[in-house]
Protein backbone atom coordinates (compact mmCIF):
# COMPACT_ATOMS: atom_id res chain seq x y z
CA UNK A 1 0.00 0.00 0.00
CA UNK A 2 2.86 2.36 0.94
CA UNK A 3 4.47 1.65 -2.44
CA UNK A 4 1.18 2.27 -4.18
CA UNK A 5 0.81 5.70 -2.54
CA UNK A 6 4.47 6.51 -3.17
CA UNK A 7 4.26 5.46 -6.83
CA UNK A 8 1.07 7.45 -7.36
CA UNK A 9 2.66 10.51 -5.73
CA UNK A 10 5.77 10.26 -7.91
CA UNK A 11 3.63 9.77 -11.01
CA UNK A 12 1.38 12.74 -10.20
CA UNK A 13 4.34 14.96 -9.34
CA UNK A 14 6.15 14.00 -12.55
CA UNK A 15 3.10 14.74 -14.66
CA UNK A 16 2.59 18.05 -12.86
CA UNK A 17 6.24 18.97 -13.44
CA UNK A 18 5.89 18.14 -17.15
CA UNK A 19 2.78 20.28 -17.25
CA UNK A 20 4.03 23.26 -15.27
CA UNK A 21 7.76 23.07 -15.98
CA UNK A 22 8.82 24.74 -12.73
CA UNK A 23 11.90 26.99 -13.02
CA UNK A 24 11.95 26.32 -16.72
CA UNK A 25 12.90 22.66 -16.20
CA UNK A 26 12.52 20.81 -19.48
CA UNK A 27 9.98 18.03 -19.87
CA UNK A 28 12.78 15.55 -20.41
CA UNK A 29 14.45 16.44 -17.11
CA UNK A 30 11.14 16.38 -15.22
CA UNK A 31 10.36 12.96 -16.66
CA UNK A 32 13.88 11.70 -15.93
CA UNK A 33 13.60 12.78 -12.29
CA UNK A 34 10.32 10.86 -12.03
CA UNK A 35 11.89 7.75 -13.57
CA UNK A 36 14.90 7.90 -11.23
CA UNK A 37 12.60 8.25 -8.23
CA UNK A 38 10.46 5.31 -9.36
CA UNK A 39 13.54 3.08 -9.51
CA UNK A 40 15.22 4.51 -6.39
CA UNK A 41 12.12 3.96 -4.26
CA UNK A 42 11.67 0.43 -5.51
CA UNK A 43 8.43 1.15 -7.36
CA UNK A 44 10.10 -0.41 -10.37
CA UNK A 45 12.74 -3.08 -9.67
CA UNK A 46 16.04 -2.13 -11.40
CA UNK A 47 16.20 -5.67 -12.80
CA UNK A 48 13.19 -4.90 -14.98
CA UNK A 49 14.82 -1.84 -16.54
CA UNK A 50 17.00 -3.54 -19.12
CA UNK A 51 14.23 -5.79 -20.38
CA UNK A 52 11.77 -2.90 -20.48
CA UNK A 53 14.00 -0.57 -22.48
CA UNK A 54 15.46 -3.27 -24.72
CA UNK A 55 11.89 -4.18 -25.65
CA UNK A 56 11.41 -0.69 -27.07
CA UNK A 57 14.23 -0.90 -29.63
CA UNK A 58 11.77 -0.56 -32.50
CA UNK A 59 10.40 2.72 -31.12
CA UNK A 60 13.89 4.16 -30.52
CA UNK A 61 15.09 3.14 -33.97
CA UNK A 62 11.99 4.54 -35.63
CA UNK A 63 12.27 7.92 -33.88
CA UNK A 64 15.97 8.17 -34.73
CA UNK A 65 15.54 7.11 -38.35
CA UNK A 66 12.63 9.48 -38.83
CA UNK A 67 14.52 12.47 -37.48
CA UNK A 68 17.56 11.79 -39.66
CA UNK A 69 15.41 11.26 -42.77
CA UNK A 70 13.57 14.54 -42.14
CA UNK A 71 16.79 16.45 -41.57
CA UNK A 72 18.26 15.18 -44.85
CA UNK A 73 15.01 15.86 -46.72
CA UNK A 74 15.10 19.42 -45.45
CA UNK A 75 18.76 19.81 -46.38
CA UNK A 76 18.05 18.50 -49.88
CA UNK A 77 15.39 21.20 -50.29
CA UNK A 78 12.49 18.77 -50.59
CA UNK A 79 10.06 20.86 -48.53
CA UNK A 80 10.84 24.10 -50.36
CA UNK A 81 10.56 22.33 -53.71
CA UNK A 82 7.21 20.86 -52.67
CA UNK A 83 5.74 24.19 -51.56
CA UNK A 84 7.04 26.00 -54.67
CA UNK A 85 5.65 23.29 -56.94
CA UNK A 86 2.22 23.62 -55.35
CA UNK A 87 2.38 27.43 -55.56
CA UNK A 88 3.12 27.30 -59.28
CA UNK A 89 0.27 24.93 -59.96
CA UNK A 90 -2.29 26.63 -57.75
CA UNK A 91 -1.60 30.18 -58.99
CA UNK A 92 -3.13 32.67 -58.79
CA UNK A 93 -5.75 31.57 -56.24
CA UNK A 94 -4.72 31.74 -52.57
CA UNK A 95 -7.57 29.35 -51.76
CA UNK A 96 -6.29 26.74 -54.18
CA UNK A 97 -2.81 27.18 -52.77
CA UNK A 98 -4.15 26.72 -49.24
CA UNK A 99 -5.92 23.49 -50.18
CA UNK A 100 -2.79 22.25 -51.95
CA UNK A 101 -0.54 23.02 -48.99
CA UNK A 102 -3.00 21.41 -46.57
CA UNK A 103 -3.16 18.20 -48.61
CA UNK A 104 0.61 18.18 -49.04
CA UNK A 105 0.84 18.50 -45.25
CA UNK A 106 -1.38 15.43 -44.95
CA UNK A 107 0.95 13.55 -47.34
CA UNK A 108 4.10 14.62 -45.48
CA UNK A 109 2.47 13.61 -42.19
CA UNK A 110 1.42 10.25 -43.59
CA UNK A 111 4.93 9.27 -44.69
CA UNK A 112 7.34 11.44 -42.71
CA UNK A 113 5.34 11.85 -39.47
CA UNK A 114 3.44 14.67 -37.86
CA UNK A 115 6.65 16.18 -36.50
CA UNK A 116 8.05 16.65 -40.00
CA UNK A 117 4.95 18.61 -40.97
CA UNK A 118 4.72 20.64 -37.79
CA UNK A 119 8.37 21.46 -37.40
CA UNK A 120 9.86 21.42 -40.89
CA UNK A 121 7.06 22.01 -43.38
CA UNK A 122 5.55 24.86 -41.31
CA UNK A 123 8.59 27.19 -41.63
CA UNK A 124 8.84 26.38 -45.35
CA UNK A 125 5.16 27.28 -45.81
CA UNK A 126 5.61 30.40 -43.70
CA UNK A 127 8.43 31.53 -46.01
CA UNK A 128 6.25 30.79 -49.03
CA UNK A 129 3.36 32.88 -47.70
CA UNK A 130 5.71 35.79 -46.92
CA UNK A 131 7.19 35.64 -50.43
CA UNK A 132 3.77 35.55 -52.04
CA UNK A 133 2.52 38.38 -49.78
CA UNK A 134 -0.23 36.25 -48.38
CA UNK A 135 -1.48 36.31 -44.79
CA UNK A 136 0.77 33.96 -42.85
CA UNK A 137 -1.41 32.86 -39.95
CA UNK A 138 -3.97 30.76 -41.88
CA UNK A 139 -1.12 28.83 -43.47
CA UNK A 140 0.60 28.33 -40.13
CA UNK A 141 -2.59 27.04 -38.56
CA UNK A 142 -3.22 24.78 -41.54
CA UNK A 143 0.19 23.11 -41.19
CA UNK A 144 0.03 22.64 -37.44
CA UNK A 145 -3.51 21.27 -37.52
CA UNK A 146 -3.00 18.87 -40.39
CA UNK A 147 0.11 17.54 -38.65
CA UNK A 148 -2.10 16.03 -35.96
CA UNK A 149 -5.27 15.66 -38.02
CA UNK A 150 -3.55 13.33 -40.50
CA UNK A 151 -1.58 11.45 -37.83
CA UNK A 152 -3.74 8.36 -37.92
CA UNK A 153 -3.72 7.90 -41.67
CA UNK A 154 -1.02 5.22 -41.48
CA UNK A 155 0.57 3.33 -38.57
CA UNK A 156 3.81 5.30 -38.98
CA UNK A 157 2.27 8.76 -39.46
CA UNK A 158 2.78 9.55 -35.79
CA UNK A 159 5.57 7.81 -33.84
CA UNK A 160 3.29 7.42 -30.80
CA UNK A 161 1.03 5.16 -32.90
CA UNK A 162 3.85 2.67 -32.64
CA UNK A 163 3.29 2.22 -28.89
CA UNK A 164 -0.12 0.72 -29.58
CA UNK A 165 0.67 -0.84 -32.97
CA UNK A 166 3.70 -2.68 -31.54
CA UNK A 167 2.06 -3.71 -28.29
CA UNK A 168 -1.13 -5.07 -29.81
CA UNK A 169 0.40 -6.17 -33.12
CA UNK A 170 -2.05 -4.18 -35.22
CA UNK A 171 -1.92 -5.08 -38.90
CA UNK A 172 -1.89 -2.54 -41.74
CA UNK A 173 -5.20 -3.93 -42.99
CA UNK A 174 -6.83 -3.56 -39.58
CA UNK A 175 -5.38 -0.09 -39.15
CA UNK A 176 -6.63 1.10 -42.53
CA UNK A 177 -9.93 -0.71 -42.13
CA UNK A 178 -10.66 1.20 -38.93
CA UNK A 179 -8.86 4.48 -39.41
CA UNK A 180 -8.77 5.32 -43.12
CA UNK A 181 -12.25 6.82 -43.18
CA UNK A 182 -11.84 8.73 -39.89
CA UNK A 183 -8.53 10.08 -41.24
CA UNK A 184 -10.05 11.20 -44.50
CA UNK A 185 -12.89 12.80 -42.59
CA UNK A 186 -10.46 14.56 -40.25
CA UNK A 187 -8.41 15.96 -43.16
CA UNK A 188 -11.42 16.89 -45.31
CA UNK A 189 -13.45 18.43 -42.50
CA UNK A 190 -10.49 20.38 -41.18
CA UNK A 191 -9.66 21.74 -44.63
CA UNK A 192 -13.25 22.67 -45.44
CA UNK A 193 -13.67 24.38 -42.08
CA UNK A 194 -10.48 26.39 -42.42
CA UNK A 195 -11.39 27.44 -45.96
CA UNK A 196 -14.60 28.86 -44.50
CA UNK A 197 -13.00 30.39 -41.40
CA UNK A 198 -10.21 32.02 -43.42
CA UNK A 199 -12.31 32.82 -46.49
CA UNK A 200 -11.64 36.52 -46.17
CA UNK A 201 -7.87 36.27 -45.80
CA UNK A 202 -7.66 33.69 -48.58
CA UNK A 203 -9.88 35.53 -51.02
CA UNK A 204 -6.88 37.10 -52.77
CA UNK A 205 -4.64 36.24 -55.67
CA UNK A 206 -0.86 36.02 -55.82
CA UNK A 207 1.82 36.31 -58.45
CA UNK A 208 4.07 33.36 -59.20
CA UNK A 209 6.74 35.89 -60.18
CA UNK A 210 7.14 36.65 -56.46
CA UNK A 211 8.68 33.20 -56.05
CA UNK A 212 12.47 33.38 -56.18
CA UNK A 213 14.46 30.84 -58.22
CA UNK A 214 15.14 27.79 -56.13
CA UNK A 215 18.53 27.44 -54.53
CA UNK A 216 19.60 23.95 -53.55
CA UNK A 217 22.78 22.64 -51.97
CA UNK A 218 23.01 20.09 -54.79
CA UNK A 219 20.56 19.26 -57.56
CA UNK A 220 21.82 15.69 -57.77
CA UNK A 221 21.41 15.23 -54.02
CA UNK A 222 17.86 16.61 -54.29
CA UNK A 223 16.89 14.23 -57.10
CA UNK A 224 18.39 11.13 -55.54
CA UNK A 225 17.00 12.07 -52.10
CA UNK A 226 13.53 12.17 -53.67
CA UNK A 227 14.02 8.64 -54.99
CA UNK A 228 15.17 7.36 -51.59
CA UNK A 229 12.26 9.09 -49.85
CA UNK A 230 9.74 7.48 -52.20
CA UNK A 231 11.42 4.10 -51.75
CA UNK A 232 11.33 4.54 -47.97
CA UNK A 233 7.62 5.38 -48.12
CA UNK A 234 6.97 2.23 -50.13
CA UNK A 235 9.10 0.19 -47.73
CA UNK A 236 7.10 1.52 -44.75
CA UNK A 237 3.91 0.27 -46.36
CA UNK A 238 5.46 -3.08 -47.17
CA UNK A 239 6.88 -3.48 -43.66
CA UNK A 240 3.50 -2.60 -42.14
CA UNK A 241 1.85 -5.14 -44.42
CA UNK A 242 4.30 -7.87 -43.46
CA UNK A 243 4.39 -6.91 -39.78
CA UNK A 244 8.14 -6.18 -40.04
CA UNK A 245 9.71 -3.63 -37.68
CA UNK A 246 9.38 -0.08 -39.00
CA UNK A 247 12.59 1.02 -37.34
CA UNK A 248 14.56 -1.07 -39.83
CA UNK A 249 12.94 0.85 -42.71
CA UNK A 250 13.43 4.24 -41.05
CA UNK A 251 17.07 3.55 -40.22
CA UNK A 252 17.60 2.11 -43.71
CA UNK A 253 16.20 5.28 -45.28
CA UNK A 254 18.38 7.40 -43.00
CA UNK A 255 21.52 5.45 -43.94
CA UNK A 256 20.59 5.68 -47.63
CA UNK A 257 20.18 9.45 -47.47
CA UNK A 258 23.38 9.75 -45.43
CA UNK A 259 25.29 7.79 -48.08
CA UNK A 260 23.92 10.12 -50.78
CA UNK A 261 24.86 13.20 -48.78
CA UNK A 262 28.38 11.79 -48.40
CA UNK A 263 28.60 11.00 -52.09
CA UNK A 264 27.56 14.49 -53.14
CA UNK A 265 29.77 16.16 -50.56
CA UNK A 266 26.97 17.76 -48.52
CA UNK A 267 27.17 15.63 -45.38
CA UNK A 268 27.60 17.83 -42.30
CA UNK A 269 27.71 15.46 -39.34
CA UNK A 270 27.90 18.26 -36.76
CA UNK A 271 24.78 19.92 -38.10
CA UNK A 272 23.00 16.58 -38.39
CA UNK A 273 23.73 15.77 -34.75
CA UNK A 274 22.42 19.19 -33.75
CA UNK A 275 19.21 18.56 -35.64
CA UNK A 276 18.34 15.40 -33.74
CA UNK A 277 16.26 16.04 -30.67
CA UNK A 278 18.29 13.93 -28.22
CA UNK A 279 16.17 15.09 -25.29
CA UNK A 280 13.25 13.26 -26.88
CA UNK A 281 15.01 9.94 -26.23
CA UNK A 282 15.52 10.90 -22.58
CA UNK A 283 11.85 11.89 -22.38
CA UNK A 284 10.40 8.72 -23.87
CA UNK A 285 12.83 6.50 -21.94
CA UNK A 286 11.80 8.15 -18.68
CA UNK A 287 8.15 7.86 -19.67
CA UNK A 288 8.54 4.13 -20.38
CA UNK A 289 9.94 3.71 -16.85
CA UNK A 290 7.34 5.87 -15.09
CA UNK A 291 4.37 4.30 -16.85
CA UNK A 292 5.72 0.77 -16.36
CA UNK A 293 6.09 1.43 -12.64
CA UNK A 294 2.55 2.77 -12.51
CA UNK A 295 1.36 -0.31 -14.38
CA UNK A 296 3.24 -2.71 -12.08
CA UNK A 297 1.72 -1.02 -9.04
CA UNK A 298 -1.71 -1.64 -10.54
CA UNK A 299 -2.54 2.04 -10.88
CA UNK A 300 -3.50 1.77 -14.54
CA UNK A 301 -5.91 -1.01 -13.60
CA UNK A 302 -8.42 1.73 -12.77
CA UNK A 303 -8.07 3.07 -16.29
CA UNK A 304 -8.46 -0.46 -17.63
CA UNK A 305 -11.57 -0.99 -15.49
CA UNK A 306 -13.05 2.26 -16.79
CA UNK A 307 -12.38 1.21 -20.37
CA UNK A 308 -13.78 -2.27 -19.67
CA UNK A 309 -16.95 -0.76 -18.24
CA UNK A 310 -17.28 1.49 -21.25
CA UNK A 311 -16.74 -1.48 -23.57
CA UNK A 312 -19.78 -3.06 -21.96
CA UNK A 313 -21.96 -0.16 -22.99
CA UNK A 314 -22.76 0.70 -26.60
CA UNK A 315 -19.76 0.28 -28.94
CA UNK A 316 -20.19 3.82 -30.24
CA UNK A 317 -20.23 5.33 -26.77
CA UNK A 318 -17.26 3.26 -25.65
CA UNK A 319 -15.26 4.37 -28.71
CA UNK A 320 -16.25 7.98 -28.06
CA UNK A 321 -15.38 7.77 -24.37
CA UNK A 322 -11.99 6.17 -25.09
CA UNK A 323 -11.14 8.68 -27.84
CA UNK A 324 -12.25 11.63 -25.70
CA UNK A 325 -10.37 10.40 -22.64
CA UNK A 326 -7.22 9.89 -24.71
CA UNK A 327 -7.63 13.29 -26.37
CA UNK A 328 -8.19 15.09 -23.10
CA UNK A 329 -5.24 13.34 -21.46
CA UNK A 330 -2.99 14.00 -24.44
CA UNK A 331 -3.96 17.63 -24.15
CA UNK A 332 -3.68 17.89 -20.41
CA UNK A 333 -0.31 16.20 -20.16
CA UNK A 334 1.42 15.38 -23.39
CA UNK A 335 0.56 12.78 -25.96
CA UNK A 336 3.59 10.58 -25.26
CA UNK A 337 2.70 9.68 -21.63
CA UNK A 338 -1.01 9.56 -22.54
CA UNK A 339 -0.37 7.08 -25.36
CA UNK A 340 1.65 4.93 -22.94
CA UNK A 341 -1.06 5.19 -20.27
CA UNK A 342 -3.75 4.19 -22.76
CA UNK A 343 -1.58 1.27 -23.92
CA UNK A 344 -1.17 0.16 -20.33
CA UNK A 345 -4.87 0.62 -19.54
CA UNK A 346 -5.92 -1.34 -22.63
CA UNK A 347 -3.50 -4.14 -21.71
CA UNK A 348 -5.55 -4.68 -18.57
CA UNK A 349 -8.36 -5.85 -20.86
CA UNK A 350 -6.31 -8.83 -22.05
CA UNK A 351 -3.89 -9.47 -24.90
CA UNK A 352 -6.33 -8.42 -27.62
CA UNK A 353 -8.80 -5.86 -26.38
CA UNK A 354 -11.75 -4.71 -28.42
CA UNK A 355 -10.48 -3.23 -31.71
CA UNK A 356 -12.84 -0.26 -31.45
CA UNK A 357 -11.20 0.82 -28.19
CA UNK A 358 -7.67 0.44 -29.57
CA UNK A 359 -8.30 2.52 -32.65
CA UNK A 360 -10.34 5.09 -30.75
CA UNK A 361 -7.39 5.50 -28.38
CA UNK A 362 -5.07 6.12 -31.35
CA UNK A 363 -7.41 8.80 -32.73
CA UNK A 364 -7.65 10.44 -29.31
CA UNK A 365 -3.95 10.67 -28.53
CA UNK A 366 -3.18 11.81 -32.09
CA UNK A 367 -5.83 14.51 -32.47
CA UNK A 368 -5.99 15.59 -28.80
CA UNK A 369 -3.09 18.04 -28.94
CA UNK A 370 -5.04 20.14 -31.46
CA UNK A 371 -7.65 20.98 -28.85
CA UNK A 372 -5.60 23.70 -27.23
CA UNK A 373 -2.73 25.78 -28.44
CA UNK A 374 -0.17 23.65 -30.16
CA UNK A 375 0.46 20.43 -28.41
CA UNK A 376 -0.82 20.27 -24.91
CA UNK A 377 -2.04 22.23 -21.98
CA UNK A 378 1.61 22.52 -21.04
CA UNK A 379 1.95 24.72 -24.08
CA UNK A 380 -0.78 26.99 -22.80
CA UNK A 381 0.99 27.43 -19.51
CA UNK A 382 4.17 28.11 -21.39
CA UNK A 383 2.40 30.58 -23.66
CA UNK A 384 1.14 32.44 -20.61
CA UNK A 385 4.71 32.63 -19.39
CA UNK A 386 5.75 34.06 -22.74
CA UNK A 387 2.99 36.61 -22.53
CA UNK A 388 4.26 37.73 -19.18
CA UNK A 389 7.53 38.48 -20.91
CA UNK A 390 5.70 40.62 -23.45
CA UNK A 391 5.68 38.10 -26.27
CA UNK A 392 2.39 38.14 -28.09
CA UNK A 393 1.10 34.72 -29.04
CA UNK A 394 -1.89 33.54 -30.91
CA UNK A 395 -3.07 30.88 -28.47
CA UNK A 396 -6.65 32.09 -28.18
CA UNK A 397 -7.18 31.98 -31.93
CA UNK A 398 -5.67 28.50 -31.97
CA UNK A 399 -7.92 27.38 -29.15
CA UNK A 400 -11.02 28.63 -30.98
CA UNK A 401 -10.04 26.61 -34.04
CA UNK A 402 -9.23 23.54 -31.92
CA UNK A 403 -12.62 23.67 -30.24
CA UNK A 404 -14.24 23.67 -33.66
CA UNK A 405 -12.17 20.84 -35.10
CA UNK A 406 -11.37 18.30 -32.37
CA UNK A 407 -14.81 17.44 -30.92
CA UNK A 408 -16.25 17.04 -34.43
CA UNK A 409 -13.40 14.73 -35.46
CA UNK A 410 -13.69 12.69 -32.24
CA UNK A 411 -17.43 12.28 -32.73
CA UNK A 412 -17.20 11.36 -36.42
CA UNK A 413 -14.19 9.09 -35.91
CA UNK A 414 -15.95 7.21 -33.09
CA UNK A 415 -19.00 6.74 -35.29
CA UNK A 416 -16.89 5.54 -38.23
CA UNK A 417 -14.87 3.18 -36.01
CA UNK A 418 -18.13 1.83 -34.58
CA UNK A 419 -19.51 1.27 -38.10
CA UNK A 420 -16.22 -0.35 -39.13
CA UNK A 421 -15.99 -2.73 -36.16
Amino acid at each position, binding site marked *: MAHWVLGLTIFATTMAAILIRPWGVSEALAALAGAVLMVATGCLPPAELVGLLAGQWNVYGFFLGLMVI*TAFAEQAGVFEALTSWIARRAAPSARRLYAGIFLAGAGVTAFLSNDATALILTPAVYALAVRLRLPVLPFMYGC*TFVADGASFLLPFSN*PINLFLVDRFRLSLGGFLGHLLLPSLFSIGFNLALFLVVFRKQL*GVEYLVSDLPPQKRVSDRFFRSALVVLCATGGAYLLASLLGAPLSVVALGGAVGLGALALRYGVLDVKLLLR*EISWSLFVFITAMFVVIKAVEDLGITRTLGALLARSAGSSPFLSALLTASLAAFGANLLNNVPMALLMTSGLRQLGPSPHAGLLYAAIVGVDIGPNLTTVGSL*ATIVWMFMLRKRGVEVTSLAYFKLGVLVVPAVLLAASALIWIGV
Partner: protein
Amino acid sequence: MRVMCAIGRRGGPSLIDAISALLDRDDPVLLVHVVDSGPRRGLEGFLGGPASHGPRAHVRSEELLDATEAEAAERILAEARSRAERLGVSCEVEVLRGAPEREILRSAAARSPDLLVIGRAEGPPPIDAPRSPGAEPGRLGRVARFVVDHAAWRLLLVPLARDS
Protein backbone atom coordinates in the same frame (compact mmCIF):
# COMPACT_ATOMS: atom_id res chain seq x y z
CA MET B 1 4.91 68.91 -46.86
CA ARG B 2 6.68 66.00 -45.15
CA VAL B 3 4.79 62.82 -45.95
CA MET B 4 5.13 59.45 -44.33
CA CYS B 5 3.44 56.61 -46.16
CA ALA B 6 2.99 53.17 -44.59
CA ILE B 7 3.04 50.48 -47.26
CA GLY B 8 1.40 47.16 -46.47
CA ARG B 9 2.08 43.72 -47.93
CA ARG B 10 0.03 44.60 -50.99
CA GLY B 11 -1.21 47.71 -52.72
CA GLY B 12 1.94 49.88 -52.48
CA PRO B 13 1.78 51.20 -56.08
CA SER B 14 -1.96 51.93 -55.76
CA LEU B 15 -1.27 53.89 -52.59
CA ILE B 16 1.39 55.92 -54.40
CA ASP B 17 -0.98 56.55 -57.32
CA ALA B 18 -3.61 57.79 -54.91
CA ILE B 19 -1.38 60.30 -53.18
CA SER B 20 0.75 61.44 -56.11
CA ALA B 21 -1.70 64.18 -57.06
CA LEU B 22 -1.36 65.69 -53.58
CA LEU B 23 2.41 65.88 -53.67
CA ASP B 24 4.82 68.46 -54.99
CA ARG B 25 8.01 67.20 -56.60
CA ASP B 26 10.12 68.44 -53.69
CA ASP B 27 7.99 67.02 -50.90
CA PRO B 28 10.09 64.62 -48.83
CA VAL B 29 8.32 61.28 -48.80
CA LEU B 30 9.23 58.39 -46.54
CA LEU B 31 7.90 54.95 -47.43
CA VAL B 32 7.75 52.62 -44.47
CA HIS B 33 7.01 48.91 -44.41
CA VAL B 34 6.60 47.05 -41.15
CA VAL B 35 7.41 43.34 -41.07
CA ASP B 36 4.72 42.01 -38.74
CA SER B 37 6.58 40.12 -36.02
CA GLY B 38 3.43 38.56 -34.52
CA PRO B 39 3.15 35.47 -36.72
CA ARG B 40 6.88 34.89 -36.54
CA ARG B 41 6.79 34.97 -32.75
CA GLY B 42 3.91 32.55 -32.87
CA LEU B 43 5.94 30.28 -35.11
CA GLU B 44 9.03 30.53 -32.93
CA GLY B 45 6.89 29.85 -29.91
CA PHE B 46 5.44 26.82 -31.60
CA LEU B 47 8.80 25.46 -32.73
CA GLY B 48 10.44 26.09 -29.38
CA GLY B 49 7.59 24.87 -27.21
CA PRO B 50 6.53 21.38 -26.23
CA ALA B 51 5.77 20.66 -29.87
CA SER B 52 9.48 20.74 -30.46
CA HIS B 53 9.80 17.04 -29.69
CA GLY B 54 10.98 15.47 -32.87
CA PRO B 55 13.29 16.47 -35.66
CA ARG B 56 15.04 19.76 -35.15
CA ALA B 57 15.89 20.53 -38.75
CA HIS B 58 14.11 23.83 -38.14
CA VAL B 59 17.36 25.13 -36.65
CA ARG B 60 18.16 25.95 -40.27
CA SER B 61 14.87 27.72 -40.84
CA GLU B 62 15.69 30.78 -38.70
CA GLU B 63 18.15 32.09 -41.29
CA LEU B 64 15.80 31.23 -44.13
CA LEU B 65 12.94 33.12 -42.54
CA ASP B 66 15.05 36.18 -41.68
CA ALA B 67 16.26 36.37 -45.28
CA THR B 68 12.79 35.76 -46.70
CA GLU B 69 11.17 38.49 -44.62
CA ALA B 70 13.93 40.97 -45.43
CA GLU B 71 13.74 40.18 -49.16
CA ALA B 72 9.95 40.48 -49.22
CA ALA B 73 10.06 43.83 -47.39
CA GLU B 74 12.67 45.19 -49.78
CA ARG B 75 10.65 44.06 -52.77
CA ILE B 76 7.48 45.66 -51.42
CA LEU B 77 9.24 48.99 -50.88
CA ALA B 78 11.18 48.86 -54.16
CA GLU B 79 7.93 48.37 -56.04
CA ALA B 80 6.32 51.41 -54.39
CA ARG B 81 9.46 53.52 -54.77
CA SER B 82 9.75 52.70 -58.45
CA ARG B 83 6.14 53.78 -59.00
CA ALA B 84 6.76 57.01 -57.08
CA GLU B 85 9.89 57.77 -59.08
CA ARG B 86 8.04 57.16 -62.31
CA LEU B 87 5.58 59.81 -61.17
CA GLY B 88 8.45 62.16 -60.40
CA VAL B 89 8.35 61.78 -56.62
CA SER B 90 11.60 60.87 -54.94
CA CYS B 91 11.39 59.03 -51.67
CA GLU B 92 13.31 57.28 -48.95
CA VAL B 93 12.42 53.87 -47.66
CA GLU B 94 12.62 52.20 -44.28
CA VAL B 95 11.89 48.69 -43.08
CA LEU B 96 10.66 48.31 -39.51
CA ARG B 97 9.84 45.20 -37.53
CA GLY B 98 7.18 44.73 -34.87
CA ALA B 99 3.42 45.15 -34.53
CA PRO B 100 2.60 47.21 -37.66
CA GLU B 101 0.10 49.54 -35.97
CA ARG B 102 2.48 50.40 -33.15
CA GLU B 103 5.57 50.72 -35.32
CA ILE B 104 3.79 53.07 -37.75
CA LEU B 105 2.77 55.32 -34.85
CA ARG B 106 6.17 55.11 -33.18
CA SER B 107 7.92 56.02 -36.39
CA ALA B 108 5.49 58.86 -37.06
CA ALA B 109 5.93 60.18 -33.52
CA ALA B 110 9.67 60.34 -34.10
CA ARG B 111 9.21 62.29 -37.34
CA SER B 112 6.03 64.31 -36.85
CA PRO B 113 5.06 64.22 -40.54
CA ASP B 114 2.69 66.78 -42.01
CA LEU B 115 0.70 63.92 -43.45
CA LEU B 116 0.57 60.25 -42.51
CA VAL B 117 -0.81 58.00 -45.25
CA ILE B 118 -2.07 54.48 -44.71
CA GLY B 119 -3.99 52.12 -46.94
CA ARG B 120 -7.24 50.57 -46.02
CA ALA B 121 -7.42 47.00 -47.23
CA GLU B 122 -10.45 45.86 -49.19
CA GLY B 123 -11.67 49.34 -49.97
CA PRO B 124 -14.83 50.86 -48.58
CA PRO B 125 -17.73 48.52 -47.95
CA PRO B 126 -21.02 49.31 -49.73
CA ILE B 127 -23.07 51.60 -47.55
CA ASP B 128 -26.03 49.23 -47.60
CA ALA B 129 -24.03 46.01 -47.27
CA PRO B 130 -25.90 43.41 -45.23
CA ARG B 131 -24.51 42.76 -41.79
CA SER B 132 -23.61 39.20 -41.13
CA PRO B 133 -21.64 37.60 -38.30
CA GLY B 134 -17.94 37.41 -39.08
CA ALA B 135 -18.15 39.83 -41.99
CA GLU B 136 -19.12 43.13 -40.52
CA PRO B 137 -19.06 45.81 -43.17
CA GLY B 138 -17.62 49.14 -42.27
CA ARG B 139 -15.04 47.79 -39.87
CA LEU B 140 -11.49 48.85 -40.42
CA GLY B 141 -8.75 46.31 -40.12
CA ARG B 142 -6.69 46.02 -36.95
CA VAL B 143 -3.83 48.19 -38.19
CA ALA B 144 -5.95 50.97 -39.75
CA ARG B 145 -8.27 51.09 -36.76
CA PHE B 146 -5.41 51.46 -34.30
CA VAL B 147 -3.67 54.13 -36.37
CA VAL B 148 -6.92 56.07 -36.87
CA ASP B 149 -7.58 55.94 -33.14
CA HIS B 150 -4.12 57.06 -32.08
CA ALA B 151 -2.72 59.24 -34.84
CA ALA B 152 -1.86 62.76 -33.72
CA TRP B 153 -1.10 63.95 -37.25
CA ARG B 154 -3.13 64.69 -40.32
CA LEU B 155 -4.06 61.31 -41.65
CA LEU B 156 -5.02 60.13 -45.10
CA LEU B 157 -6.78 56.78 -45.27
CA VAL B 158 -6.68 55.43 -48.82
CA PRO B 159 -9.14 52.69 -49.78
CA LEU B 160 -7.33 49.98 -51.71
CA ALA B 161 -9.02 47.47 -53.97
CA ARG B 162 -9.19 44.08 -52.32
CA ASP B 163 -6.70 42.48 -54.66
CA SER B 164 -4.47 45.43 -55.44
